[in-house]
């Protein structure tokens, strides 16, 4: 979303409301958009509008308020959808950290891999997206298991310090992205037209496209599925036990290596799903898309508390809404700083995360 959301929405859904546009952009409650940042459509509309000198003489206040309210509803919906993608992405990241106790920086690469595999399945093999999505997820999951087995398991076995694992994944991430962008180039690829139905649903004043609905539904399914897995199954119990205390888990006859592999697989699946869905929504796939998401992912897992699955969902939604609102009501440039600002605030005020219990030390 590079253009200004409010302006786009106004230009799209209120065609011909040139007077209203100029009023909303310049005067109405708190909405200030610097002229040069407005999309060309709006700028043109404004300059060609007859109401340039006399702005909206006859429009009643109620019309403005209704517009602002529906705009807010749409903004909120957009924010929640964006937040759902952040939550979906951060879910696997935080699960991986919680169980494996490693900040795995290659996580963003699984995201890219999922999107690229699904894209190849759609474009080259001509599969439908309903087959491409699980395929992309599976590829990312397998990749996660391979990388974890090759790089992190040896370090875990040697009980190397936490930072060694972080450094290994850091080197690996540079290596993998360099290889990928050398092999594929960095140009943007797109899903073929018609991958998803073009229809959009309208709920009252809010409009959601097929990709956005798919994101919300998939995120909901994954969150519920993960919650059921963690709370209701023996595998989930094993995962939680290893997350709590690896040595104690081993003494309880839990197969720790297998559980760790399961955690890698699960987080890879989640990253792959996020990659395919976000790739579909933005329809711009390129090797470094995972790096961009990682920056949001870091913020989300810190805001939600490291290793906290519920926190990651809450923090993802919060960050999505905060970013869209900041872009809509302050300035689109501010959007990229929101994640970092929230992260530093949480670090200062409540380092255990939004939903975290207070702990004296995490060493």
């Amino acid at each position: 979303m590079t253009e200004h959301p409010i302006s786009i929405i106004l230009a799209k859904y209120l065609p011909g409301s040139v007077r209203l546009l100029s009023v909303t952009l310049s005067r109405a409650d708190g909405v200030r958009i610097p002229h040069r940042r407005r999309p060309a459509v709006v700028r043109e509309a404004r300059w060609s509008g007859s109401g340039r000198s006399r702005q909206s003489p006859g429009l009643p206040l109620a019309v403005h308020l209704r517009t602002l309210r529906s705009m807010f509803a749409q903004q909120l919906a957009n924010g929640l959808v964006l937040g759902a993608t952040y939550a979906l992405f951060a879910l696997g990241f935080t699960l991986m950290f919680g169980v494996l106790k490693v900040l795995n920086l290659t996580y963003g690469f699984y995201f890219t891999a999922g999107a690229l595999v699904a894209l190849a399945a759609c474009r080259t093999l001509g599969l439908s997206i309903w087959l491409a999505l699980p395929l992309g997820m599976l590829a990312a999951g397998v990749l996660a298991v391979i990388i974890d087995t090759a790089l992190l398991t040896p370090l875990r076995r040697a009980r190397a310090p936490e930072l060694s694992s972080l450094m290994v994944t850091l080197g690996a991430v540079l290596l993998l992205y360099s290889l990928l962008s050398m092999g594929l180039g960095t140009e943007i690829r797109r899903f073929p037209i018609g991958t998803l139905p073009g229809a959009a649903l309208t709920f009252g004043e809010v409009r959601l496209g097929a990709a956005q609905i798919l994101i919300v539904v998939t995120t909901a399914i994954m969150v519920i599925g993960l919650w059921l897995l963690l709370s209701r199954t023996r595998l989930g119990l094993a995962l939680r036990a290893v997350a709590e205390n690896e040595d104690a888990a081993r003494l309880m006859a839990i197969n720790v290596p297998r559980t760790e592999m399961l955690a890698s697989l699960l987080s890879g699946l989640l990253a792959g799903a996020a990659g395919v869905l976000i790739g579909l929504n933005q329809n711009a796939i390129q090797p470094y898309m995972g790096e961009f998401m990682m920056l949001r992912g870091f913020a989300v897992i810190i805001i939600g508390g490291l290793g906290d699955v519920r926190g990651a969902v809450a923090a993802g939604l919060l960050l999505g809404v905060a970013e869209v609102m900041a872009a809509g009501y302050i300035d689109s440039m501010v959007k990229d700083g929101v994640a970092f600002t929230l992260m530093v605030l949480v670090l200062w005020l409540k380092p255990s995360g939004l939903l975290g219990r207070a702990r004296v030390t995490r060493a």
Partner: protein
Amino acid sequence: MPVWLDDVLWTYQTLIHSLGINGLLALSMYVVLAVGQLSLGQAAFMGLGAYTGALLSLHTGLPFALVLAGSALVPALAAALIGLPTLRLTGVYLAIATIGLGEVLRVVYVNAEITGGALGLSGIRDRTDSWMILALLGAALAGCFLVGRSRFGRAMEAMRSDQTAAAVIGINLPAYHLGALLASAALAGLAGALSAHSSTFISPNEYAFENAVTILSFAILGGTGSPLGPVIGALVLTALPELLRPLHDFRGVFNGLIIVLVVLFLPRGLLPWRMKRLGGAP
């Protein structure tokens, strides 16, 4: 000074400048690693120093020494902002916060008017010379050795091998961590200001995440047993791509591979010396 030496310095001026600057960056990484922390914001601190130095040089008539001091101070303040809350927690928090800092600063550089947007700043007067850069590197190296041999150095070594044990014998871990992070940010800022003046232009992309990883690869390759290790790592990794042109295109792959291989197979780097052997203090 013999004439041939002057000739060498003149001919290889660019290479010597980047060797010295990368040496300083490697030392800045070493200072953090030496207390058992990991900062991924060295490129960000370098960028802050570079922009501060460039702006001071372009808009004020301050003497170069003051410009350099300012360029070391500003990154140290940024380091305090993210270091104070994170250093009480485990190392992962600092790593994440420093990555975030780098990215948010890049957004600021690209969008702010005063930093020249995506094009960056150009026309910075070259106020450096090879001797100045090498002398600063030597001073930083000597400083690291002296600190390493002092009471502080032994405390740092203790906390690097076992944080809990170090805390138990009464070492104030957060204070040391913060001190190391501030010193590291100041060194990186200094290197940034030197590189901005030496290359006469800067742009936001020079301080991206990949550069932070490259700086880390200097330190890891050399090993962090002594301050000399990272500097030698920087020398090798700066000179190699210059000598072997094909390596230049594969730099990302190469640096990444080095980090992976060294961490997995040579956890103490190429030069696994301890400070004791060089320094003599027990």
